[in-house]
C-alpha cells in the first residue's frame, strides 16, 4: 500500500490539474454575472485538440515541434517530485526543490525557443517578456524556498512540508504568512494570471504567455495547455502545503482536505482576477520585486529568531 499511495497521489494530481483553470473560470463568470464555461471545459478542449491535425509555419524547424513536448515532460517530471498533502512523492531526495526549479526553467526555455522559431515579431516579444519576468521571479521563488528550508531545517520538499505543522504556524506565523504572500505573487506571475498577464486578452501586443504559443495547434497545443494546468497545480500545491500543514494521520482525510485547499486557491486566483485590473507591463517587475522582498523579509525574520 505504501508504494501505491505515491503513485495514486501522482495520478490524482495529473488527472485533476486541468480542473483548476475550470474553477478559476467559474469564479470569474460568477463575479461577472455570466453563465460561464463548463467546469470541465479544459478536458473537452484537450480531447478535441488531440484529435486535430496541426498546422506548421514554413519558418519553423524541429525546435518548434519539440517545445511543447519538452515543456509538458518537464512539468510532469516536476509533478513527480511534488509532495501531496505533506506526504512525499515517489521521487524525493535532498535538494529536490532545486531540481524542480530548474525543471520549470527547462519548460520555459523550451517554450521560448519554440516561440523564437516562428520568426514572428509578436512571439519574440512574448519570449522576451517571459525571460524578463523570470529574472525577477526566480530569485523571489528561491528566497521563499530558502526561508522555508530555514524554518523547517530540512532540504527536501517532502522534508520541509512534512516538518511543517500547525505548531509551526503558531511559532513562526509572520514568516509563513510572508512566504505564502510571496508564493502567491509568484504563482500569479508564473502562470500568466492577472495582474501580471491576462489569459483572456485578445490583443497580441499585450500578451505574454499566450502570445508565445499563438502558432501551436493540434496535439502540440494540447501539450501546452496541459503543461500550463500542471504548472498552476504545482505552485498551488506549494502554497497549499504551506498554508495547510497536515495534522491528522489519515491519508484519505488529509488528501481530501488538500484537494479542497487546491480548489480554494484556484477560487482565490479567480477572485483576484475579477477584482483587480491588470498592471502595466513595466510594473510587473515591481510586483515580483515585492514578492522577493516578502520572502527576503521572511528569511530575515527567521534568521533573527
Amino acid at each position, binding site marked *: 500500500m505504501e508504494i501505491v499511495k505515491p503513485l495514486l497521489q501522482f495520478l490524482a494530481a495529473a488527472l485533476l490539474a486541468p480542473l483548476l483553470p475550470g474553477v478559476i473560470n467559474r469564479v470569474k463568470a460568477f463575479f461577472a454575472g455570466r453563465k460561464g464555461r463548463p467546469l470541465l471545459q479544459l478536458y473537452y478542449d484537450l480531447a478535441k485538440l488531440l484529435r486535430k491535425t496541426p498546422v506548421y509555419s514554413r519558418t519553423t524547424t524541429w525546435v518548434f515541434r519539440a517545445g511543447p513536448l519538452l515543456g509538458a515532460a518537464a512539468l510532469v517530471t516536476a509533478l513527480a517530485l511534488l509532495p501531496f498533502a505533506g506526504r512525499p512523492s515517489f521521487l524525493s531526495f535532498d535538494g529536490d526543490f532545486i531540481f524542480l526549479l530548474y525543471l520549470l526553467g527547462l519548460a520555459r526555455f523550451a517554450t521560448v525557443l519554440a516561440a523564437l522559431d516562428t520568426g514572428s515579431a509578436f512571439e519574440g516579444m512574448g519570449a522576451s517578456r517571459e525571460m524578463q519576468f523570470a*529574472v525577477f521571479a526566480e*530569485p523571489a521563488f528561491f528566497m521563499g524556498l530558502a526561508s522555508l528550508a530555514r524554518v523547517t531545517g530540512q532540504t527536501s520538499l517532502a522534508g520541509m512540508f512534512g516538518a511543517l505543522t500547525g505548531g509551526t504556524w503558531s511559532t513562526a506565523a509572520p514568516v509563513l504568512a510572508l512566504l505564502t504572500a510571496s508564493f502567491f505573487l509568484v504563482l500569479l506571475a508564473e502562470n500568466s494570471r492577472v495582474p501580471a498577464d491576462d489569459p483572456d486578452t485578445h490583443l497580441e501586443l499585450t500578451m505574454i504567455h499566450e502570445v508565445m504559443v499563438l502558432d501551436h495547434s493540434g496535439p502540440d497545443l494540447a501539450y501546452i495547455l496541459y503543461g500550463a494546468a500542471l504548472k498552476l497545480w504545482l505552485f498551488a500545491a506549494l502554497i497549499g502545503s504551506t498554508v495547510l500543514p497536515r495534522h491528522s494521520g489519515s491519508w484519505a482525510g488529509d488528501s481530501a482536505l488538500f484537494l479542497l485547499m487546491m480548489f480554494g486557491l484556484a477560487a482565490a486566483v479567480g477572485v483576484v482576477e475579477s477584482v483587480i485590473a491588470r498592471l502595466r507591463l513595466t510594473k510587473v517587475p515591481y510586483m515580483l520585486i515585492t514578492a522577493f522582498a516578502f520572502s527576503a523579509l521572511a528569511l530575515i525574520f527567521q534568521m533573527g529568531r
Partner: protein
Amino acid sequence: MLLVLLSLALLLAGSALALLLARNPGRAQDAGAYYAVAASLAGLVPAVRVLLTGETETLALPWSVPLGSLSFNLDPLAAFFLVPVFLLTGLAAVYGADYLKGYAGKKPLGLAWAAFNVLTAAMVLVLTAANAVLFMVGWELMAAASFLLVLFEHEREQSRRAAFLYISAGGVGALLLLAAFALLGRSSASLDFALFSAPAGAAASAVFLLGLFGFGLKAGFVPLHVWLPEAHPAAPSQVSAVMSGVMIKTGIYGLIRLLGFLPVWEEWWGWTLLAAGAASCLIGALFSLAQHELKRVLAYSSIENIGIIVMALGLGVVASINGSPVMAGLAFAGALLHVLNHSLFKGLLFMGAGAVLHGAGTAELEALGGLGKRMPRTAAFFLAGAASACALPPFNGFAGEFLIYLGAFKALGQPGPAGLAGVIAGLSLAAAGALAAAAFSRAAGTAFLGEPRTEMAARAHEAGPLMLFSMGALALLCLLSGLAGPFLLLPVGTASAAAFGLPPALAAAASAAQPLAGVAAGFLVLLAMIAFGAVKRKVFLRGKTPAQGLTWDCGYAAPTARMQYGASSFAQPLTDFFQPVLRKIGQYPVITEYFPARASFSREAQAVFYNSVYRPVAVRIRDLAYRFSWIQHGRLQLYILYIVVTLILLLLWKL
C-alpha cells in the same frame, strides 16, 4: 606519469613538425592535429588512472636551473584538471583540422598549430609541475602561446588590441605570482611544492592576496576579467574553446593549490572569494545578455561560470572555518564538478559559434537567423550546449550547480556567518541562472531560429564532418556526464580530498551520493517522460498530414525577416532595467513628423569596467612612465652599460 611525459613529447614534436612543414599548410595541419590527438589519448590514460585509484604519481628528473627542479607530480587534483584539458584539446584539434582549412595560404597555419600544441603542453606542464620555477615556466609558455593565437587575425585592429590587453594582464599576473612564490619560498627555504610550509599571520594573507590577483588575472573573474571578452573571441574558434574551456581553469587550479599551501585560512579570504565570485557570476551573466556577437556572449558566460566556481570556493572556505566541513566539502565538490562540466559545454558552444562563423561568415547576432534549417546538426549541438550552460536538466551543467546549491542550503541551517554565505551564494546562483537562461535563449534563438536576417545567413552551409564530430562528441559528453553525476563523485571526491584534506571531502561525497542519485533518477524520469510524450504525439498524429502555412503575425500575410524580434529587442526590457550597470550607448529615433519615412537606431554594449576603471589608471601609468622615457633612448652601447652595471651591483651584493 611516463605517459604524461610521452604526451608532452608528442605535443612538442607536433609543434616542431608543424613549424618545419609550414611551407605546406595541409601537411602542417595534419602533423599538428595528429600529434595533438595522440598526445591527448596518451595523457588521458594516466589522468583517469590516478583519479580512479587516488594514488599520486611523481617523477623527478635532473635539472640544473637554480632553485628549480624538474619534478612532476600527478595527484588526483592535477589529474582532475588534466582530464578536461586532454579531452578538449584533442577534440579541438580534430575540429581545427576542418576549421582552419579555409585559412590555408592566407595564414601561417604551421605557426598556429605549433602554438596550439605548445599551449596544450604548457597547460599540462602547469598542472603537473611540482616546483614553482617549473610551474612559472609552464605558466609563461601558456601565456606566450595563447598570445600568438589571439593574434591569429592580426590584420584586425581589434585583435591587436585584444592581444595587447591579454599579454599585459598575463604579465601583471605572472609578476604577482612570482612575488607570491617568493614569499612562500622564503618561509620554507625551497621552491618545491611538497616542501612548502606556510608563513604565518600577515605574510600568509599577503601570499593569499598576491595569489588571488595573480591567478585571478588568468581565471578572469570580476574585476580582473577585462581582457577575457576581448581575447577569447579573437582567437580561432577551436582555440577560443580551449582558452575558455580549460585554460582559464588553470587559474582556478592555482587558487585551489594556493589554498592547499596555506593550511590556516582566514575567514575574510572566504568572503573575498565569495564576493568576487558572486559579482562575477551576476555581472558575467548580465553582460553576456547585452553582447551582439556570439563569441562575446560566450566569453562573458565564461566569466559567469568562473564566478560560480570561485563563489563555491569562497562558500567552502567560510563554511569550513565556521565548523561546517560537510557543507564546505559539498561546495568544493560542486566547484570541481563545475570545472569539468563547464569545460565540456563551453568547448562545445565555442565550437558551435566557430561553425556559425565558418558557415555564415559572421557571428553578429543581428545578421544571423534561420541557421537551424541550413546547419541543422550544429544547431542541435549548440542548443544542447546552451541548455547545459543554463544548468537545465538533463544536461551536465546542472550537476555541479546542484551540489553548490545543496552546500548553500545546508549552510543555511547553520547559525552565524555560514548561513549568510549560503544565502548569498544561493541567491546569486539563482539570479545568474535566470539571466543566463535569458542570454542563451536570446543567442541561440536569434542565430539559429526564425528567418535569416541577411543574405549571408541565408546562404550559410553546414560545418565539415570533423567539426561536427567534435561538437557531437562534446554534446554527447554533456548529456552523459549529466546522467553520470553519482559516478563522477568518486573522482571529484578524490580530487577534493587531495586538495582540501581527506575527512571533509569523504563526508561530503557520502552526503552528496544520495541527492546526486536522486538527480540522476530525475533525469531518467524526465527522459522517459520525453520519450513517452514523443511516442504519444506520434500516435495522435498518425494518418494526418500537418498543413504548412505562414507564421501568424496578427493577420498580416507578408511577413519579412526584418519584422522578426532581434537580439537587441529581445534583451531590451532587461538591459534597460539594468542600464545603470550596463551603460549601453546608442540612440533611439525621435519622431517629429506625422509621416516619418526613415529612422535609425543603434545600441552598443560597452566594456564598462575597462572604460571606467582600467583606462583611467592605465592613462596615469602611461603618463608617469613617459617621465622616465629618457632611460629608453635606443642607444645600444648604453643598454650594454646598464647590463654591466646591474651585474656588478649584483656581484657586490652577493659578496
